[in-house]
């Protein structure tokens, strides 16, 4: 314990040199901007800036890259809140209540709580990282294909159940998302599915296409109908801060969702989208006023933001402690470490304590700096709401297309984008929620391959899905989530009926 604190103090002496402080600030600022632009994720940001990091030395380079990474997590939800246009998968959940808040004239609170929740989530993540990185990494190894499958089932059911009283609609949405996720080359057999001969579809549809289609495009399409244009141009802005009451309500959700987000981050391949969606659905389940979710409930914004940032710290663990990059960003970072002559893996902590502890300290410093950058930045960004629709919507459309083009440098993706925009409009009209669709499209492929992997390893024995305590716990939680709405409506009937008599 004392030793850890000594190490951490040593880390701060490295991280707080003027030079490294400058790097983490620079990284945070660049990352925030990159995170705000749809299509440009932290992976691209880090890769493009890679050559610049060569002259910084390993510690400086790693700190800069992580700064970009933290910054992108902060910035990702800005466009979700203000324009309903999430910059990446992890920012989707910020649309659910963030955008309604902005429409209700509470953009200032939304932007503030998003930065504050991100900040606290990041700090909690950093604390867990300091004390438990190695143990958590070892625990994550117990997730085999069977456990992964159980986790995906849990996440999907939790998200589908978001549409309370409408579980069926949620499941319809999930099923459609799963269908979309089967597009592309099937890794286990090497066979193309639903690609219709298009090479561009072989890698599957990038989920950003689905997200931007469902959110940005639907938003723009909707405003083409003169009857539904209700957008009020906001001209007066308050300070970017929250009330005491809002803070009191958000604190617990922020604190309890961060560790869950962190754990999901540690699992290779799971990622921020799942972390933030699960945080959102957890809070909705726990809430006394679940009907307020989706209409501008501040808790519904705070929880996913916290989980998402804790997740981004958790995602560094497999890369640093095991040498396993679990996501695109960490893969790029690992490449950079190799270029600098470092070998990420179990021995990194012993061989290069300066780098590891400098980086760990930078998680604290980086999160503080990102919060400091983001609050004043938000007071600038919020003015986007004073832009009249005739200028704003075409700009959103332009940004959406630019972002999609940036994914793979090809105009092919515009066709599915438009298609998903139209589909989103239809779903909206039918009152079918789109979030289960999105999560299913993202994790569907992983769920399916893990299902098949598990069966391949067990030789077809279905017992493989329930032979570990992790799986069993996850299935039990799934069942509870499914039964909870039934129980609540049962209790509601039995408590209200007598009082009426």
């Amino acid at each position, binding site marked *: 314990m004392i030793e850890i604190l000594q190490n951490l103090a040593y880390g701060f002496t490295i991280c707080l040199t003027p030079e490294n402080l400058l790097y983490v600030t620079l990284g945070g600022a660049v990352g925030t901007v990159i995170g705000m632009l749809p299509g440009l994720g932290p*992976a*691209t940001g*880090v*890769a493009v800036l*890679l*050559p610049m990091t*060569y002259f910084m030395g390993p510690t400086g380079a790693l700190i800069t890259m992580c700064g970009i990474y933290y910054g992108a997590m902060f910035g990702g939800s800005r466009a979700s809140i203000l324009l309903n246009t999430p910059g990446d998968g992890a920012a989707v959940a910020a649309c659910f209540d963030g955008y309604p808040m902005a429409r209700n004239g509470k953009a200032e609170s939304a932007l503030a709580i998003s930065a504050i929740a991100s900040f606290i989530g990041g700090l909690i993540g950093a604390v867990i990282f300091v004390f438990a990185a190695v143990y958590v990494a070892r625990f*994550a*190894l*117990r*997730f*085999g*294909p069977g456990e992964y499958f159980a986790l995906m089932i849990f996440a999907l059911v939790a998200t589908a159940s978001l549409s309370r009283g409408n579980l069926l609609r949620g499941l319809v949405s999930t099923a459609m998302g799963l269908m979309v996720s089967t597009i592309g*080359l*099937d*890794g*286990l*057999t*090497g066979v*193309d599915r639903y690609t219709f001969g298009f*090479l*561009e579809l*072989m*890698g599957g549809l990038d989920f950003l296409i689905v997200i931007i289609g469902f959110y940005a495009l639907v938003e723009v399409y909707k405003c083409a109908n003169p009857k539904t244009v209700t957008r009020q141009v906001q001209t007066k802005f308050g300070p970017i801060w929250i009330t005491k009451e809002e803070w009191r309500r958000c604190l617990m959700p922020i604190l309890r969702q961060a560790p869950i987000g962190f754990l999901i981050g540690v699992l*290779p*391949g799971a990622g921020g989208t799942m972390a933030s969606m699960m945080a959102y659905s957890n809070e909705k389940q726990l809430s006394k006023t679940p009907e307020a979710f989706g209409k501008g409930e501040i808790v519904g914004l705070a929880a996913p933001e916290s989980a998402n940032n804790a997740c981004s710290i958790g995602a560094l663990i*497999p890369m640093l402690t*095991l*040498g*396993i*990059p*679990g996501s*695109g*960003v960490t*893969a*790029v970072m*690992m*490449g950079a470490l*190799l*270029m*600098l*002559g470092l*070998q*990420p*893996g*179990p*021995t*990194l902590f012993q061989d290069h304590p300066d780098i590891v502890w400098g980086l760990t300290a930078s998680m604290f410093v980086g999160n503080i700096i990102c919060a400091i950058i983001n609050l004043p930045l938000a007071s600038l960004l919020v003015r986007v709401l004073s832009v009249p629709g005739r200028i704003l919507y075409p700009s959103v459309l332009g940004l959406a297309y630019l972002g999609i083009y940036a994914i*793979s*440098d*090809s105009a092919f993706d515009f066709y599915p984008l438009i298609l998903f925009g139209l589909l989103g409009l239809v779903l909206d009209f039918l009152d079918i929620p789109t979030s289960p669709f999105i999560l299913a499209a993202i994790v569907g492929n*992983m769920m399916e*391959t893990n299902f098949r*992997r598990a069966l*391949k*390893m067990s*030789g077809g024995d279905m017992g493989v899905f329930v032979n570990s305590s992790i799986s069993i716990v996850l299935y039990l939680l799934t069942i509870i989530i499914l039964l909870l709405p039934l129980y609540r409506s049962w209790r509601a009937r039995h408590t209200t009926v007598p009082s009426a008599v």
Partner: protein
Amino acid sequence: MLKVAKYLLPALVAGFAFSASAADYPSRPMEFIAPAGAGGGWDTTIRAVAKVLSDTGLVKVPMPVTNKPGGGGGVNLAYMTQKAKSDTIVSVYSPPLLLINLSGTTPLSYKNTTPLARLISDYEAFAVKADSPYKDLNDVIEALKKDPGSVSIGGTSAAGSMDHLAFVQVAKAAGVNDIKKLNYISYQDGSSLAQLLGGHLDILSTGITELLGQLKSGDIRVLCYTAPKPVAGREGIPTCREAGVPVDFLNWRGLFGTEKMPEAAVKYWRDTLGKMVQTKEWADARAQYGWDDSYLDGPEFEKFLEQSNEEYKGMLSELGMLAAQ
């Protein structure tokens, strides 16, 4: 003044008109392409090349790298075919260039490119957890001979791609029949090493450089790797030849121009890359990434591709994964 203009003007005009054939090639920025996303092997390789070329001053024009993912590299191949006469496109590829054609993903092949040089090779390694009952390659082969489906073999690429083929080639050469029944499980999401460490997989087939961290800490053992001769820095690990199976499998990476790249540009890049591989900067970059030098000049590279293509064809057809040609 006028006099100067009199000489300068034609020179300028000539410069523009013959930009490809003139001695001042390249005069415009190059278009370096990684046919996959940031962070992968292709991306790392071409970025390293661009850096060494500009650091050593061998190439003076900018060489920005674009990522053009899709179709396992097939989307970029289509793009290169569209711009077949370009003198600025240089792209990196590795064995999947041949495999995506053989498996029927794209009708385009290496014949729709101009091979400029083979630069480096990584090798496939077959790893087990430190406490695995398989002590050496022979144990695995024996188990497979009894029951080809009894060992779960993970890999980071799709079925029918490199990690799969490398293992198949070794198993086949060691006398395992029924290679179609091998239990290969693809982990394209990058979680394969975690699955091996967690005890969910018996063997992992992947590039040896992916395994260095775990090797160093002693969490895994590598049964053998597919280099033709021992590589410096891999002491204590047998090559597959040393382990008794005479098979090499090169995960080479090389650079390619478009199919009808102008003669002068092809010559320039063959010469320049030939010079680059002799620099200290390139040797340093290779050492850092753990890449083995396997330089081949364009024409020999093309012969090598032809030969590899036939080998892969044989294996894929035995696995039942060869597309109708």
